């Protein structure tokens, strides 16, 4: 790491005063104790809260930690990079670096030293071989309706291979609304999972390919149902001169659609990348409210509890990921919701798995599924 960057990081770490307010959501005015940091809450040791994790990073940068240990890897990788800590901290102190980015850089340092998790290295290998994060060899079947359309739908690995109902719904919505679209002939993983797990170098080839394909497509707008992909394009890709939109932004922009209410009482779960990273809180709610009645949960928007699957956690620490999701399902139930709705394939997959495991009947959807269901064809 360059000296200047190292000093910037150390300075940010020195500014953490260990108040741990980042571990709970705003207390006033309701005086409710609501934990906010999934990793700290699950594992308990200080190493799993932002202030403790920063001290570990400091020791790595100062050369005091010279060997990998189980605790080191767990502390570094069992964090969903949800950013809840940062949202709280910035209200309080002058922390100048976003904490999730700081933790990503911590992982990149570990990778440089050869201390990546095997499971994450396997993902990188799979991507190298198949260009998708799940190592699937088959193609998700989708065809452009117009090879010159202004809109390109970037589907993403999770919607293609693990929760295809989201991609299906989005494609049907395009059709029902008469929007012509392209999909990429060769859509490669956006690189998010590699970047989030510190495998920065391995992501470069993917990014180059996708940039080239998108440029060649001539599309003016790229639409995403996956906030992780969208955030990666926004943050890590160079400006391609195209507009990047989340599905809910597109749907809001279209204005009134011919939808009817489905008679469902739902809670809306803010995906971390969509909300805290991209500041998109209102559009999903606006779209969802046209098809369902939204019940408010206690932790929402900037202070939403993470579903537990981000940052490479789902692949490495599934027990923790599912526990986090169960906590969220409980909250939705407490709010009186029969279904928990998100706007992210990653959230849906983890929340659904937890709901199925629990077997207590909370339904889990993505917004586009409900919109598609209620749209008159």
């Amino acid at each position, binding site marked *: 790491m360059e000296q200047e960057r190292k000093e910037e990081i150390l300075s940010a770490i020195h500014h953490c005063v260990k108040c741990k307010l980042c571990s709970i959501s705003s*207390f006033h005015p309701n005086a409710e104790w609501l934990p906010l940091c999934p990793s700290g809450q699950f594992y308990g040791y200080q190493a799993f809260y932002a202030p403790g994790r920063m*001290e570990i990073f400091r*020791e790595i940068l100062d050369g005091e930690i010279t060997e990998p240990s189980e605790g080191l890897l767990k502390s570094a990788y069992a964090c969903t990079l949800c950013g809840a800590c940062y949202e709280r901290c910035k209200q309080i102190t002058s922390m100048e670096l976003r904490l999730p980015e700081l933790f990503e850089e911590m992982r990149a340092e570990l990778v440089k030293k050869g201390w990546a998790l095997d499971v994450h290295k396997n993902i990188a290998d799979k991507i190298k071989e198949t260009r998708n994060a799940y190592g699937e060899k088959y193609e998700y079947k989708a065809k452009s309706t117009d090879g010159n359309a202004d809109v390109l739908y970037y589907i993403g690995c999770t919607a293609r291979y693990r929760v295809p109902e989201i991609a299906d719904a989005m494609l049907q919505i395009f059709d029902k609304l008469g929007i012509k679209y392209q999909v990429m002939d060769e859509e490669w993983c956006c690189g998010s999972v590699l970047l989030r797990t510190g495998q920065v170098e391995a992501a470069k080839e993917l990014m180059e390919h996708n940039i080239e394909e998108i440029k060649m497509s001539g599309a003016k707008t790229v639409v995403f149902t996956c906030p992780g992909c969208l955030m990666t394009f926004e943050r890590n890709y160079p400006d391609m001169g195209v507009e990047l939109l989340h599905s809910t932004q597109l749907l809001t922009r279209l204005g009134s659609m011919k939808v009817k209410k489905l008679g469902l009482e739902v809670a809306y779960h803010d995906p971390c990348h969509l909300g805290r990273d991209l500041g998109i809180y209102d559009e999903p709610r606006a779209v969802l409210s046209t098809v369902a009645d939204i019940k408010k949960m206690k932790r929402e928007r900037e202070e939403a509890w993470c579903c537990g699957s981000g940052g490479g956690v789902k692949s490495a620490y599934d027990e923790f990921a599912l526990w986090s999701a169960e906590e969220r399902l409980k909250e939705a139930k407490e709010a009186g919701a029969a279904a928990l709705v998100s706007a992210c394939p990653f959230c849906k997959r983890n929340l659904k798995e937890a709901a199925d495991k629990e077997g207590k009947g909370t339904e889990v959807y993505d917004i586009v599924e409900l919109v598609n269901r209620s749209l008159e064809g």
Partner: protein
Amino acid sequence: MKMTRSLSKFVKELQTIVGEENATDDKAICASYSRDQHWHFVPAKNPAYIVRPGNKEEVRRVLTFANNEKIPVIPYSTGINVRGLTIPVHERSILLDLSRMNRIVEINPEMMTATVEPGVTFGMLLEKTKKYKLRPAFPDAPLTASVLANYYLRGIYQTSAVDGHDHTLSYEMVLPNGETIKTGSRSLSEMPYFRYGVGPDFTGVFCAHPGTCGVVTELTAKLYRLYDNRKEYFVGFDDAGTPRKIIYNLMHDELAASIRLVDNQSWLKGICGTFDYPYEKLPKFVLCVLVEGVDGIFEAKDKLVQEYIKESGGTVLEFPEEFKRTFEEESLGGAEKSCMVFGLRGNYHCIGLYGPLTLAAQYYEVHEKTALEVGIPQDHIHFYINPIYSFHGQLCYFELDIFYDGGDLGFGEKLRNYNEKQFQRLLDLGIYGWFRPYAGIIGPTADRIGYLAEVWKKFLRVLDPNEIMNRGKLF
């Protein structure tokens, strides 16, 4: 990556007591406990083991084991102290993280008490007491801090003007030899509600020890009423001396729940809950007053408060409603915004002391003088006064603050110079006592307290002959 590692004999022993998940000597996990905000004075050091007991019996077994093996032990409840009190001095230290023990054992609305374990935070406690219209006394420490550790250490509270600063009634403490002692009425009965059980004030004798006597596993504390009637006033003054008269009057007549004289650039921002206000245009000092009470008494108190404000020589400041609400929430609902002071420049240093209101202006003068002498810029120098009920001796807490950039390594040297001069100057000027004991402050003070220092050391030796309990944090 395969991690193969052989556990040391000690960790295996500790794991048999608290479970495999709850004891470790993993270097990275230990590193996460290596530093607090006071690192310019207490440098980073890793504990050798982290142990997270789940109940009193486990605490007792860990202490007995550590005592037999002569391994230093650092009790840690939530780790939010600002004096390096849980940073190891010695090699091979066990950091005893008590945060898993977070049961609220009892809230007794009739007795107006709460009994808690070490991991219970101020936030957790208020969540449960508010339904009885009761609250704990809140320090300015973030509401993520341990109630037990804070009261046991004895602190300063937002509502000191009405609640005083002793909220502890009784507690249970495990000693290094594995014996448990109970203080106050707890020693005689199942009723832990009275501080003075048998003979001397044992509750007080062990209090304010930074983990150097034993481990407190349960503590019963006072709760206070939450009133519906509340009103806030902010009065501006150009100097620290003029508000003395109104502080005296308000305290003498026991009129306010909270009285804080702060300067316009530091704690006031936390009290108002925002950095975004032209504070620099306000008078240099602002007196924040909160009045509360039952119908009838509230109105009478409020009338008197208004009269005292009129004759105070200060200017009543018209603040937005949300500032008033924040002041109220911070005082009666737990401190959430006080940590904003760290955001001013990135870190803070303070000397906290008890003394009479009569010396307010001198304390401020000497604070400014010493800070400037050692090269601390004027705009880093801050101050606040918090009077304490009951007002005998015109008892006040004074905080001599310096807000600085924590990333500026050179500033640490200035602060150390400041401390060295300032401790002596304050002792020469006359103080009642330091806020809390910690190594940096006990050193220069021990000479001044004569034979008491010897008695204190002997007392600790009797309790802890193997010197395992957080030694180095006092003497």
